[in-house]
């Protein structure tokens, strides 16, 4: 056994007391700060639930067609969504989609600027990268506990946990994409006397867009991967059905809800990937000359 060098109990107690102190003194403020996020999530959820099912199917099938310009993907999307409806999973699927969309959109707003910042400063990258590693490897239950303590069980901690879990790949890929922009193009732009802003929005971001989109795709997938865990603290949706299936030993309920999550993953993954591929083809990146 490893020898007990110091007594760690005071340390543990300090951490617990510190958190309790935060909850007691700042709980209200933090909750108020997170309130807009909740509003945002609820708004998306209401919107999705109020939209007729056929319109949502039509939009997703249309997006799939626009992204690929052939009928294979739209047919897959159509069949997948109809399956979801027939299995009586539509409502839960919309709740889950709302959580995924809210988390992904928030992650985009936060991660892309941080990715840009990382790409510009070695120092920032050195500081942020280990934090990202931590965010990705730390089991999400660990930060669910303080989140639930602060916000109480419900959608806010679920959303925050999903954002924390889903953001890192987008930050990494934004940084990578921006740093990998062809230096010859950057130099040409510089030679014409561009400002840093002109270079960022006129050259770097457009050229890094396929990589950034790959990041958005991964963020979407990771957000979907969180739904079961998120439903444990009150997010509802397909994840909740899976939990119930486990709790009641109803294999069918868990299985179909699980398949519903798979269907959502396939639909969003294929559509975002197809857009990335289209962009890449337009630029002729990765093409050998």
């Amino acid at each position, binding site marked *: 056994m490893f020898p007990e060098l110091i007594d760690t109990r005071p340390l543990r107690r300090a951490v617990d007391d510190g958190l309790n102190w935060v909850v007691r003194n700042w709980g209200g403020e933090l909750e108020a700060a997170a309130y807009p996020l909740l509003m945002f999530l609820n708004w998306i959820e209401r919107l999705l639930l109020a939209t007729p099912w056929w319109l949502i199917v039509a939009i997703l099938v249309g997006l799939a067609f626009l992204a690929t310009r052939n009928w294979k993907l739209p047919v897959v999307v159509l069949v997948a969504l109809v399956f979801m409806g027939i299995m009586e999973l539509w409502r839960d699927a919309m709740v889950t989609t709302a959580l995924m969309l809210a988390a992904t959109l928030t992650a985009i707003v936060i991660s892309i600027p941080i990715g840009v910042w990382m790409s510009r400063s070695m120092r920032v990258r050195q500081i942020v990268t280990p934090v990202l590693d931590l965010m990705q490897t730390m089991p999400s239950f660990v930060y669910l506990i303080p989140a639930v303590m602060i916000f109480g069980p419900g959608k806010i901690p679920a959303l925050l946990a999903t954002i924390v879990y889903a953001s890192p790949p987008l930050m990494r890929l934004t940084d990578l994409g921006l740093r990998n922009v062809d230096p*010859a193009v950057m*130099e040409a732009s510089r030679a*014409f*006397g561009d400002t840093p802003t002109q270079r960022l929005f006129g050259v770097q971001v457009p050229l890094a867009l396929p990589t950034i989109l790959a990041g958005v795709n991964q963020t979407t997938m990771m957000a979907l991967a969180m739904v079961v865990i998120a439903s444990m603290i009150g997010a509802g949706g397909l994840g909740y059905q899976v939990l119930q299936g486990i709790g009641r030993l109803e294999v069918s309920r868990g299985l179909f809800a699980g398949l519903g999550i798979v269907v959502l993953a396939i639909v969003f993954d294929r559509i975002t990937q197809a857009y990335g591929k289209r962009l890449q083809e337009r630029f002729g990146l990765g093409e050998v000359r």
Partner: protein
Amino acid sequence: MDTNGTTADLAITMRGVTKIFGPAPETALALLTKGKSKTEVQAETNHVVGLDDVSLDIERGQIFVVMGLSGSGKSTLIRHVNRLIDPTAGKIVVNGEDVLSMSLDQLRTFRRTSIAMVFQKFGLLPHRSVLSNVAYGLEIRGVGKAERLERAAHWVEVVGLSGYERSRPRQLSGGQQQRVGLARALAMDTDILLMDEAFSALDPLIRSGMQEQLIELQSSLNKTILFITHDFDEALKIGNRIAVLKDGAVQQVGKPEEIVLNPANAHIEEFVRDVNKARAIHVRTIMEKGAFEPCEHTVPMDARCEDVLPWFAEHQWVGVTNADGGQIGRVSARQVIRALAKYSPDVADPV
């Protein structure tokens, strides 16, 4: 040539410009000034010498060609002129302004208005059409959309890419992309043009056409062109003056025929050996000057040896006339042959 480096009729002056690539250039610079060679410095300090004490004077309205083999530092040199690279030591003056003391803002204005560049690696924006690529420099400068697209369309036509306006760069061949880069620089209409191997991706026919266009452009608009090439024939054809670069150091600067007739060292002699000297040498540089009796046939003073050769079949002497048509000298077959034979391999110096 003047040496203080700030005379008004000089477009570009470089004085003792040295560039060393690496994390601690000062130590390598000390070795270099002690007289060590590029290879020695590289072996000892792991620093690459890009330029070694380069001093050049480029007069306004000249096509100045920098010639050298791959890795000799040509691209490094041209990048110093608009300060895409900061030198380790030395001074660079463009249009009478010290480029190295410019603030970022001044530098930006300078790049937008005074100098345009064509890149060896094209540097086109892959997400934009040919037309908007050509308009890019003007867009950066802040020219309105209608005007910049109109000007861009004009230059797209001049470089022979009409019909490709809507294409993306990746849909074009290498030579076509090169011409997009060329049009993008020309559309800026700056007094100084920097051209890094601007023609090397072109096929011989288009290349020859572009060379003539460049000479024409230079003389009609009086532009100063710094032209980089690894092709000695091209240098001879378009250059008013040529600098030969090796290992980052200038080996010789002079008019084309000065270099052909008097190569400064064995390295340059190697270039000269394979070159079409009849094209390089102007007859006026080898003629007997003076008022001789008028010759039956005359050529203008910018004629080259290859232009007079056919006439020696029937004439012993061919006259050389100035712009007004007055004869200023004459040349014989013997003189031409002597000039051509000089420094040719396996021929003893006949002089």
